């Protein structure tokens, strides 16, 4: 049960049930769709990028608690950041959820995103946590292809 409690922490449940920044951006400069064909999770991300940094972000989509909380917390974490900063952040986040980083996430300045450390005990759920990040990076590159967690 403890592993489950660690996965489904209150913050994750809160963000999955009351996701932040949900909707569309009227004046989006960047957009991408993400899809996990394995489980059917879908996410659409709209960005407003100005001078290389993210001014605003909205998402739409349906998915499990982990993927919904992931995209919701992502929208809060990346405002004001540059593409490079986001790539670094995603690298740290990815290490956290795949268990490559044995430390707790706080030392890596992941902030609230550290709440996802429980995912590492659930390898099947890593893609749920990372789909939104792959989609975000695709949006920054304005890729037309639907983003997936497969490389």
């Amino acid at each position, binding site marked *: 049960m403890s592993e489950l*409690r660690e996965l*489904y922490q209150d913050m994750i449940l809160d963000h999955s049930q009351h996701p932040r920044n949900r909707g569309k951006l009227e004046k989006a400069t960047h957009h991408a769709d993400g899809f996990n064909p394995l489980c*059917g999770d879908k996410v659409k991300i709209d960005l407003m990028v100005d001078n290389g940094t993210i001014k605003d972000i909205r998402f739409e989509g*349906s*998915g499990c608690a982990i993927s919904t909380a992931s995209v919701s917390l992502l929208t809060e974490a990346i405002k004001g950041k540059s593409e490079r900063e986001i790539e670094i952040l995603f690298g740290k986040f990815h290490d956290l959820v795949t268990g490559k980083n044995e430390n707790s996430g706080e030392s890596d300045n992941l902030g609230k995103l550290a709440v996802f450390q429980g995912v590492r005990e659930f390898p099947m759920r890593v893609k749920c946590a990372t789909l939104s990040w792959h989609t975000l990076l695709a949006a920054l590159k304005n890729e037309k292809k639907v983003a997936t967690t497969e490389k």
Partner: protein
Amino acid sequence: MLMPAKNPITSFDVRKVRKDFPALELLIRGKPLVYLDNGASTQKPSAVLEAMDDFYRSRYANVHRGVYELSEKATQSFEETRDKVKNFIHAGDRKEIIFVRGTTEGINLVAHSFARPRLQEGDEVLITAMEHHANIVPWQMICAEKKARLRVVPMDATGTLMVDHLDSYLTDKTRILCVAHVSNALGTINPLETIIHKAHRMGIPVLVDGAQAVPHLLVDMQELGCDFYVFSSHKMYGPTGIGIVYGKKELLEAMSPYQGGGDMISSVTFEKTTYNDLPYKFEAGTPAIAEAIGLGAAIDYLQAIGMESINSFENELLAHAREELNKIPKLKLIGEAFCRSSIFSFTIDGIHPHDIASILDREGIAVRAGHHCAQPVMDFFKIPATVRASLSFYNTREEIDALVRGIYKVLDIFG
């Protein structure tokens, strides 16, 4: 609702049966495995494992080749399975039993060798709203190629095919009707007798996807009268990598081979090849020999228990499961057809199926979460996914109760 069991169980002893399946003794993180994903694939009885092991250790050789004793015996064991399959599904002739890799390849074989040459622009292929992707995509592919039209018989909100409307879909342009015997996502048992009768009245051949039916129901080709019936070994306690196409002899004889190679020929020159007779015409290359022998052992095993015993025990289990699940608040069963087999899909308000399955997994309970290779079914019910529990005769009431306790844990975590 489900069909009432004809006879209460007298001889069937689930405790005893479970001992035949080594995998059922597995512990998942210290908890006994509760395996409820039998619709995806079943566990294997020792009889199947031993038959394959024995073949590889002491009797192995290629088939239909050597004049030496080992090959002759291997051929004999391999061909015995063809007879076992024929008897198991009451086919008229062993030549009507074609070994393929599985249901998917079987449907592709019929689509390619039977339907494709008979389809012209504007013709129609008819499928139903509850088909598995394996009974959708091969038809879409040949329809696209031949500029034919794929039409879909609808179902109602209970997950029952609207057979009353079937006549309006059966036209003089329909070249084949393809239908699941049992829906893999909903558990609905389709009324094949009526469907086949209506199609045949119009001279339309019928292919039945029997993947989810053969492990649970008595299947009788003479009674059904369908033209093709396709199923997989691994869902009926046999090994992976082998499945069956049953086809009416006169249709199979009129069809061209699916793949070219060894075994499917009687003579080859660079100018011309003469094809082998049935069933070998459709079995190019070295077949899955050990798997065929394993499938033979699975059929022996099922017949020793008896499909009627299996069916009535599973029906009791299903009734118990539905009764208990219906008591759980916020849980909604998807698919309420009157006639059902051992599959039930459900959703819980506000909780995604993947979260449910992850939590159940920590309790040692294996269920499937997702679209079950039936995305159109999910779209019909306007849901992204369901949790699917699919039963076998080796499951127990206690395992159902463990599932129910697991679901309450999910509700507890999600508050």
